[in-house]
């Protein structure tokens, strides 16, 4: 359009092609008006809602990356297409950002001018009384012996008490109140803008780290000690407060009977922490819903599991590995868990072991071992042992929870041997060594985060609610009182009221008060 513009201007009929020859500025103004119209806002509002829907049905990378991987395995052709549309990270997708940014521009473009207009309204005088107050939706009139000035003075007093804004015209008082309705509405919308801003800047400035800690061990708040770490766009790693947390012990309670047997009732981790190198070490009972707050960071207990302890001897009889290995629960209700032990130091062959851990091992009907309960009442492990090359030397990063069996040869199949109880040893065939199940510890998964936007976001949310409630409760009202001298020293009092959005009992109460102060008298007929 703008490319053609010079030629089009030369042509005589050009102005007809566009709305009344408005030019670029005009088009911008027109676009702005469209964007900030409530109809557009409404459409954008629905688009935001619609946009979040796929995020609740498709697995999301930010929430469950492993489920995204499974989805890719299952839907080989569909998944890449969905991925191209950012449907596995909807909430950070460009198209999603486009919708909500447009919505909030629209909101700002609508609300800011309204705020300005409202401010000028707040300073203006209540409008003059209409000539005939009796025609108003709320109206009353009577006669009194009190003088007009007295009546008007009284009316001013009453209306002022009721927090009306007043203005005096010659024979009448004009009053208005209920500006809070619009104020509340504007506060609500402005608070939403602040809320979005707080959420956005909180994410940008904050960070989040996840780490798995086994009983007796600890971690410090540095990038390298986290298993996963995510800093916001404007996050500065050098600002991480230097604290350390140790896990002394973890306990989980479960229901032991009834239909919900095995359901957890309490998780508690006894931790100690030290804020800085010189600070004292303090104990804390870390529980779900009770995060530990250190140096502005919050430490959460998110999950837990078992870490069986093994001693592996190699073919030469030397201890090639000794320690706890965190196993990941594969079944939450019974805590059947899986893990991998890699023994690169074993000789002559490296050893790789896939283990299964049953906290309460019992044989099922087929004689297979299963776990009957999530607590460790009868812990046993089954081991699948491989020997050969673990593939660690080529430098490619490997998950500690996965065994690459490409260059490995199975030597023990766990389903063909008896599971090990604590203290028992499995001797490997062919003189490859032995594995002893020494016992277990528990681990917890911990999340540490810092989000400077939380308090501002919460404040904005609360202000938004107060704004909308105010705006829903308050009505805009106008009241006029006119007092005119009539014959015989009487005064005719007229009261009129206008309430936007339906009548309220307020008006009658005002008239009542007025009549009490300047009592009503029967119309003055017989004295004449």
């Amino acid at each position, binding site marked *: 359009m703008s490319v053609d513009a010079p030629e089009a201007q030369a042509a005589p009929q050009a102005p007809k092609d566009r709305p009344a020859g408005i030019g670029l500025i005009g088009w911008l103004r027109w676009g702005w008006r469209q964007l900030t119209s409530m109809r557009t806002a409404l459409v954008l509002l*629905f688009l935001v809602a619609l946009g*979040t829907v796929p*995020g609740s049905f498709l697995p999301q990378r930010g*929430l469950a990356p492993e489920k995204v991987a499974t989805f890719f395995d299952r839907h080989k052709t569909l998944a890449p297409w969905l991925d191209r549309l950012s449907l596995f990270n909807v909430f950070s997708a460009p198209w999603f950002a486009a919708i909500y940014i447009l919505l909030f521009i629209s909101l700002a473009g609508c609300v800011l001018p309204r705020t300005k207009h409202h401010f000028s309204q707040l300073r203006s005088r209540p409008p003059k009384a209409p000539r005939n107050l009796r025609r108003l939706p709320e109206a009353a009139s009577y006669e009194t012996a009190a003088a007009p000035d007295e009546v008007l003075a009284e009316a001013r007093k009453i209306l002022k008490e009721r927090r009306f804004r007043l203005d005096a015209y010659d024979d009448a008082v004009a009053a208005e109140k209920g500006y809070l309705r619009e104020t509340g509405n504007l506060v609500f919308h402005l608070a939403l803008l602040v809320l979005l801003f707080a959420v956005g800047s909180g994410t940008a400035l904050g960070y989040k780290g996840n780490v798995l800690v086994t009983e007796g061990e600890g971690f410090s708040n540095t990038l390298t000690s986290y298993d996963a770490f995510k800093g916001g766009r404007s996050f500065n790693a050098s600002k991480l407060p230097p604290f350390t947390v140790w896990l002394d012990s973890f306990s989980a309670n479960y229901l032991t009977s009834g239909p919900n047997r095995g359901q957890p009732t309490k998780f508690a981790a006894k931790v100690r922490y030290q804020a800085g190198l010189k600070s004292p070490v303090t104990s804390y009972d870390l529980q*779900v819903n009770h995060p530990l707050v250190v140096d502005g960071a919050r430490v959460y207990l998110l999950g837990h599991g078992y870490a069986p302890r093994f001693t592996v001897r190699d073919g030469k009889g030397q201890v090639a590995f000794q320690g706890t290995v965190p196993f990941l629960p594969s079944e939450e209700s019974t805590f059947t868990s899986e893990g991998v032990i890699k023994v690169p130091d074993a000789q002559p062959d490296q050893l790789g072991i896939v283990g299964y851990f049953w906290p309460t091992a019992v044989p099922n009907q087929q004689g297979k071992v299963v776990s009957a309960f999530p607590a460790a009442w009868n812990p046993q492990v089954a081991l699948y042992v491989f020997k050969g090359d673990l593939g660690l030397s080529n430098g490619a990063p490997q998950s500690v929870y996965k065994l690459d069996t490409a260059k490995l040869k199975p030597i023990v199949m766990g389903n063909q041997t008896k599971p090990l109880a604590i203290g028992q040893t499995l001797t490997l065939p062919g003189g490859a060594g032995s594995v002893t199940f020494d016992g277990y510890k528990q681990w917890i998964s911990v999340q540490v*985060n810092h989000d400077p936007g939380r308090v501002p976001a919460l404040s904005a949310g609360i202000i938004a609610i107060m704004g909308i409630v105010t705006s829903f409760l308050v009505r805009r009202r106008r009241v006029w009182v006119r007092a005119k001298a009539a014959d015989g020293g009487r005064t005719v009092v007229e009261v009129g009221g206008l309430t936007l959005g339906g009548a309220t009992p307020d008006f009658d109460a005002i008239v009542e008060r007025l009549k009490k102060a300047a009592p009503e008298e029967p119309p003055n007929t017989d004295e004449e």
Partner: protein
Amino acid sequence: MVDTHLANLSNQLMLGAVLLYVVAMVGYAADIAFGGRRAAAVPSEAKVLIGAGGPEASEAATDVEEAEDDGRRIEWGRFAVLINVLAWGVHGAEIITRGMAADRVPWGNMYEFTSAITFAAVTVYLVMLWRYKVSWLGPFLMVAVIIALGIATIWLYNDPGPLRPALHSYWIAIHVTAAVTATGTFTVAGVATILYLVKARDKAGKPGGIMDRVPDAETLDRISHRTMMFGFPIWTFAIIAGAIWADSAWGRYWGWDPKETWSFITWVVYAGYLHARATAGWRGRKAAVISLIAFGCLLFNFFGINYLVSGLHSYAG
């Protein structure tokens, strides 16, 4: 830990409440059926008044009708309301004994949520009945309540028991109570909206039908709008309280968990309704449809998300 006597008592009270709601519904229906014939005798008069004077006039017409009634209809109406209040009391006792049996707030699983939501809906209705004389809403709401409680006792039942660790927080009393109250309120608004759509469609209205006692479309629209205006800030508050809770339970205040996502969607669509009503070209029927979509989102968030999608909010079991 669980007091089985109280738990059994609670279950019996639930049964009693459902039965009483059924009786109340029959009472309301009888009120319509027997009062309906009378109303049918004076339809033209009433309609003229509606046409001439709008909502006030139609209210006046109802008053006249009631005053000159032979009393039988009033009897049925009174009976229904009386039983309804009784049912509500028994329902409340069911919830309290349930909480006492498990020694915790009585909203920890789907059975308990459903019971609490219907209780909130009936409470909202009774308050509206007292303030605004909306007995015409009674039979329709009773149907919804009976269906919901039926589903709860047959499919969602769970013995009372202690809560999972994530629910050990006083925020359950704040967040869930707000969500339940808002959901109950929106349920009443939803019933009124459906009535509005039906009423607005057959404006001509055959006299003597069950829609006779229901006020005109304009009044219905106003009532459902007011009800949603009451529910919307509570729903907003429920979401914010949920965010505060999530901040201490899950390590972040907002993470687009499916439940969070759908409460946001529900919130947006209700906000959309409130705007649509204030926007020329969307008010009336279109706005009503939007509010029903919002109500659908609310129900989906409650049932669908709990059973179809796995997330942090999975308390269906």
